[in-house]
């Protein structure tokens, strides 16, 4: 029988706290979503001043990364490179800031961040995941 790691709430709290720290350090205001590998919500926090749109976008970025097992930045790059047909992919939000969490070779979920520039959103997501895995994702 195969076994695989699963995100516990404790892991999510660690990711979210580190991500919020990274945002605060830079004076950024964001929403942070953590989903499991089925694309279902595990943890979410929206800092004061982040918009309702940020809430929805963070969740969708995370869902894209969780279900496609790829960062949303990769999807964005593909489209920028000219594969505009990728815009019709179901359930894909191709905007940087969603990062899959890969542990022991398996995708166990994803982090999505929205609120600042896309590459900064990704920086925050990476900081959260690094706090859990002890390395950059």
């Amino acid at each position, binding site marked *: 029988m195969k076994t695989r790691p699963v995100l*516990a*709430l404790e892991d*999510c709290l660690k990711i979210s706290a580190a991500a919020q720290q990274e945002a605060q350090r830079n004076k950024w205001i964001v*929403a942070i979503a953590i989903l*499991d590998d*089925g694309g*279902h*919500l*595990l*943890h*979410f*926090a*929206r*800092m*004061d001043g982040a918009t*309702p749109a940020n*809430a*929805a976008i963070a*969740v969708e970025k995370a869902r894209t990364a969780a279900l496609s097992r790829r960062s949303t930045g990769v999807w964005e790059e593909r489209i920028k490179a000219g594969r505009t047909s990728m815009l019709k992919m179901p359930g894909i939000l191709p905007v940087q800031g969603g990062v899959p969490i890969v542990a022991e070779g398996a995708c166990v979920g994803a982090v999505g961040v929205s609120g600042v520039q896309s590459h900064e959103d990704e920086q925050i997501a990476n900081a959260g995941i690094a706090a859990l895995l002890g390395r950059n994702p």
Partner: protein
Amino acid sequence: MKKILAAVLMGASAFATQALAQAYGAPITLDQARKAMAAAQAEAKKNNWNFSVAILDNGGHMVLFERSDGAFFASADVARDKAWSAAAFRRPGKAFQDRLATGGIEIRLLQLRGASPLDGGEPLIVDGKVVGSIGVSGGSGEQDGQVARAGVAALK
């Protein structure tokens, strides 16, 4: 007849009073949401229950969410639906649930867009104003309601 009338009047006035007393205030802050979340999770932990808990602002948008280990994944969406209903209609899911249970014309509540007629959704009130809402799912309706109301009490 008298009895029924009294019951109807009591029900109606309770509903009207509640609707009047709870105007929308400023949207909930993350700190307030954390306080309500901690109280709800403490209540759940005390009973060894696994839940999803969603806290929304008074526009129905998510502010804070936690799913504890072992909660079924549908609870995530159900908790949000319950919270959305409590924020949008400024009343607990239990109020809809009780009305629905009386049957007859009240079955129309099932057609009320976005309304969740399930115990476990409560408006969050600060200084008499609705600042947001809390939705809980994962246990029986009563357990969900108990955890949600622990969250409400933390802001009082």
